[in-house]
């Protein structure tokens, strides 16, 4: 999680690149912000290896799904679960990592106000991710936003307390002046 421009998408791309190239495992990237730039990923791969064959293979191991609302995320995860539980050895091969870029982008429009389903959907999403991680031993990486209480308050993670129990590890990215 981090402020805008702190590098969350870059970190995700870097993780995807190194898992796909170094560990030769498949990666599923769920992009909900439209920030996935394949040319930047390619740049990162080129920096890690000179071999073009390997770069192209690594690119093919990363599958990108563009999901723009919570229902699409849930159905993409459901489809993933079906595919994995059937153990279909298709072109996607052994999946080891799921990256969801910006869970807050899909959940924010639902929270608050008089809508009560927002919280329920958020918990359903977290349950899906946790079962996926546990049953199929996947690594799940999720990016989140930060908000402020008031215009002068400190930064805190978005999505509130309920979500804060979901991830096992939290990394805050921030840019400090002069670093």
């Amino acid at each position, binding site marked *: 999680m981090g*402020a805008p421009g702190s590098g969350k998408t870059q970190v995700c791309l870097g993780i995807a690149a190194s898992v796909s190239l170094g560990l030769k495992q498949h990666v599923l990237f769920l992009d909900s*912000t*439209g920030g996935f730039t394949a040319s930047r990923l390619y740049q990162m791969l080129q920096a890690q290896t000179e071999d073009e064959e390997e770069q192209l293979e690594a690119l093919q191991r990363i599958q*990108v799904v*563009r999901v723009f609302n919570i229902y699409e995320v849930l*159905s993409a995860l459901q489809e993933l679960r079906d595919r994995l539980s059937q153990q279909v050895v298709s072109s996607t091969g052994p999946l080891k990592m799921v990256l969801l870029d910006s869970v*807050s982008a899909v959940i924010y429009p639902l929270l608050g106000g008089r809508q009560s389903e927002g919280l329920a959907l958020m918990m359903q999403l977290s349950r899906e991710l946790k079962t996926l991680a546990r049953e199929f031993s996947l690594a799940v990486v999720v990016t989140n*936003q930060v908000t402020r209480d008031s215009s002068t308050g400190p930064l805190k993670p978005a999505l509130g307390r309920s979500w804060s129990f979901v991830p096992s590890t939290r990394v805050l990215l921030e840019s400090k002046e002069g670093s």
Partner: protein
Amino acid sequence: TEPASSSGLSAGTQSPRTHAAHADPLTRRQNGSDTRERPRACAEAPPAGFAPGARLAAAGFQTAQELLDTGPCGLSKEIGISREEALEALQVVRQECHGDAARPAGGSGATRKYTALELLEEEQSQGFIITFCSALDNILGGGVQLTKITEICGAPGVGKTQLCMQLAVDVQIPECFGGVAGEAVFIDTEGSFMVDRVVDIAAACVQHCHLIAEAQQEEDHQKALETFSLENILSHIYYFRCRDYTELLAQVYLLPEFLSEHSKVRLVVIDGIAFPFRHDFEDLSLRTRLLNGLAQQLIIIANDHRAAVVLTNQMTTRIGQSQSTLVPALGESWGHAATVRLILHWDNSQRLATLYKSPSQKESTIAYHITSHGFRDVQPPAVTHSTEGTELNPRKRPRAEEEKQQ
């Protein structure tokens, strides 16, 4: 019906019945010739060891669409299989259908799944919308990118609306000159759109293209120039005026329909997204929610129609412990909406543009000028006839134009 091909699932069948009946993206061709193939696809379903093909036909299912419509519960009751098996069968059918659904449909509604390699190829063939200020194009990586949301923030008078108008003209540059040959939608909330100014900018753009065509003397340049005229440019900018936030929201949510009728639109400009949301909004959490919903809708529009979305934002003051800084308005959560963020600001009397957030470019700052011809570099590139970088107040109509022309 014509004989089904052995692959059976090819997309381009010549069915006498039209397939345009449904707007539902999951609709397949209501085509009798394929039905024999569908149950076979189910029978090929992996290890479940379950071949309902015959049972499906016996139960009276004719098309894949009926299967999908029935749902797993209905299906399990009809054929007498367990619900899990019905679910699996439907998944296979759905996947097969997705596999041959026309890719050019843009995956609207259906899952948009690609490998990174395919996306890379797509990106490399995509064009940019140039801004005529080469320094700005450089830091943006070629220009304003299609399928992404770009946010332009700045204090009043620094040139946001000028840049938007420039982009609305530049998106129409024909492909042989390096443009994307698209149309533009301009949604104005502040009322700062001046048609006279767009005429100036468009005239300068057309003149620039004429110069290039003369210098290079190519066939398609001449042909393109015939359609690239002032009237044409102005007629392809679709202007909407929204007075408050409900109108703006309505306009954005209605935009996909408009865009599917005008499929050549490659740019959507919302000039002043902050204005309707800033004054008079008591419920801040409602504002955050509305803005986030708006952002997601814009991302969907940008992605499905391969258009660039450009938003302009205002600046507000954040009062820190010891000093105050200018930050973009609409709060922290709005900062995540845009993929690319450009902040325009002043440094004494020089206008600067800083790229604050971009998925593929690094942060940098450049200087620019606003001339009577629009957005330009500080030092004009060494092309003959380009205007000098004189700084004119963009709101004043240029008076000494004719003297400067050679």
